């Protein structure tokens, strides 16, 4: 949608800086909290194998116990320690999120670079393709893809990655287009440097801030999509568990053990929220710092 072009106006600039200044302290506090949370969750997930956690031992005698000192998150329907289950579930959820994001970002950067650099027909065709792919509701797309592939960890990483690169591609393409017109790129050939090399050496670093911001959004989407798919039984399969699949199992015991559903959901919420807040804060500093 277009907004009316505004003549840069001292008044508007001053208004904006005032308000940014006012909200700045709020923003940085929440950004710090977000980073802290992610670091903690990430660290625990990473060192999980080294911790005294036992997600697999079943003991029907102690099933559905609410959180206690012995079992911080209680026990699940098979008497397993839920805290351990949740931690290992987090490992999977975060792994999927990060890998899917990596795949999507890689594809997006490459496609964006090609489209922006080649221009003309190639650009047109690629962008039409991007539009086309973006137009299909992604839930439907992702579910359809999982029908054709055997469900599992790698399938889901692949499917999410392959269908969420479009936004990054658009951003990178925009950066590439602007950069292509810059003098040092146009004249590179006169000093004997291949244009492609110059583009590669400069576009990616220049676009890095925007790519990073897009990447945080990508992780959020990936985590939410994975949990939805696993919740539907189309994602992570047992014996592996992710927060989403834990929620699926928790559905059965909702009445007796609501905490089984409460905990993984809260963690998904907080993780996604943290990535979003982080992304917002990064986007803020990118535009303020005047990069690109």
């Amino acid at each position, binding site marked *: 949608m277009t907004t*009316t*072009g505004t*003549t840069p106006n001292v*008044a508007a600039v001053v208004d904006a*800086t*005032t308000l940014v*200044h006012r909200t700045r302290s709020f923003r940085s506090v929440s950004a710090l909290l977000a980073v802290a949370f992610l670091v903690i969750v990430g660290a625990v997930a990473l060192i999980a194998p080294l911790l005294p956690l036992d997600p697999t031992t079943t003991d029907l005698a102690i099933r559905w116990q609410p959180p206690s000192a012995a079992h911080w998150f209680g026990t699940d329907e098979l008497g397993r320690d839920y805290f351990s289950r949740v931690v290992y579930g987090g490992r999977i959820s975060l792994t999927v999120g990060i890998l899917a994001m990596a795949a999507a970002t890689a594809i997006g950067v490459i496609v964006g670079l090609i489209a922006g650099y080649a221009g003309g027909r190639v650009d047109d065709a690629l962008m039409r393709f991007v539009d086309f792919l973006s137009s299909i509701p992604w839930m439907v797309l992702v579910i359809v893809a999982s029908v054709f592939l055997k469900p599992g960890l790698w399938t889901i990483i692949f499917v999410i990655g392959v269908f969420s690169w479009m936004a990054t591609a658009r951003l990178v393409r925009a950066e590439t287009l602007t950069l292509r017109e810059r003098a040092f790129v146009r004249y590179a050939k006169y000093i004997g440097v291949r244009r492609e090399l110059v583009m590669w050496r400069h576009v990616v670093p220049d676009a890095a801030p925007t790519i990073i911001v897009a990447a945080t959004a990508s992780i959020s989407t990936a985590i939410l999509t994975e949990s939805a798919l696993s919740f539907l039984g189309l994602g992570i399969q047992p014996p592996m568990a992710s927060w989403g699949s834990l929620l699926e199992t928790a559905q059965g015991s909702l009445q007796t053990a609501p905490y089984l559903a409460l905990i993984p959901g809260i963690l998904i919420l907080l993780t996604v929220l943290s990535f979003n807040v982080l992304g917002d804060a990064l986007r803020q500093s990118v535009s303020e710092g005047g990069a690109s």
Partner: protein
Amino acid sequence: MTPAEDVLLSVDGLDVDLPGRTGGRVKVLEDVTFEVPRGRVVGIVGESGSGKTMLLRALMGILPDGAERDWRRVLLRGEDVTRTLARRRLPAAMVFQDPMTSFNPLVRIGGHLAEVAQRFQKVGRRQAQGLAREALIAVRIPDPDRVLSRYPHELSGGMRQRAMIAMALLAQPELLLADEPTTALDATIQAQILALLRTLQAERSLTVLIVTHDLGVVAAVCDDVMVMKDGRIVESGEVERVFAEPQHPYTRELLDAAPPAPAELAAPASAEEKGAGA
């Protein structure tokens, strides 16, 4: 000095500061003191950042959020309004710089004008339409009915600015403030608009304050001039005197930097001068 009853507006010690980008406050107007004689056309010149636009905004009460405005004394027609001005408005209307962006693109000209007429003249919708039409005629728009039903983007720059002036007239001001009224226009149109302002001033006994960075504009239509730099008034007086014998070094700088003014008083800035401006 001008006798008191001939002074429309007298401002003493106006200060305005704004929140700075990195905290703290920035002074945009400092101890600004001036008198505006009734019925005169006063030019306010300075470069970007001199505070001239902020001066108009301070008078109209539309400073940016977070701005603080303070003064020692303000007299309106000789009456002391220092305390009441914060709540009341001056009997003034402002013509803004860029008529393209100054109108709501989704509202027709007639709508804009009628809204102002209703607000300031306390009339109903139909009467307001009639007043809007009259206002368009007053600014010499040849086909007022057509213009009333047009959207802003459908008019030329000059017509838009005339419509903006018409809108200002509908507020029945005694004081007309114009912020760079011709900067966004082509050279030939500039001349027409300035002539229009001059004519309206005479017809309605308006007092006009024109902010501009263009000395040619001042030379063309202004009686008096105030020179501003860094939030302060550095010099003021009658245009002929100030241009002929500038007292302040900054005024001299400005005059030296400007291309020679055209001989005829009615012909304002040439195209090159417009390009040299901010």
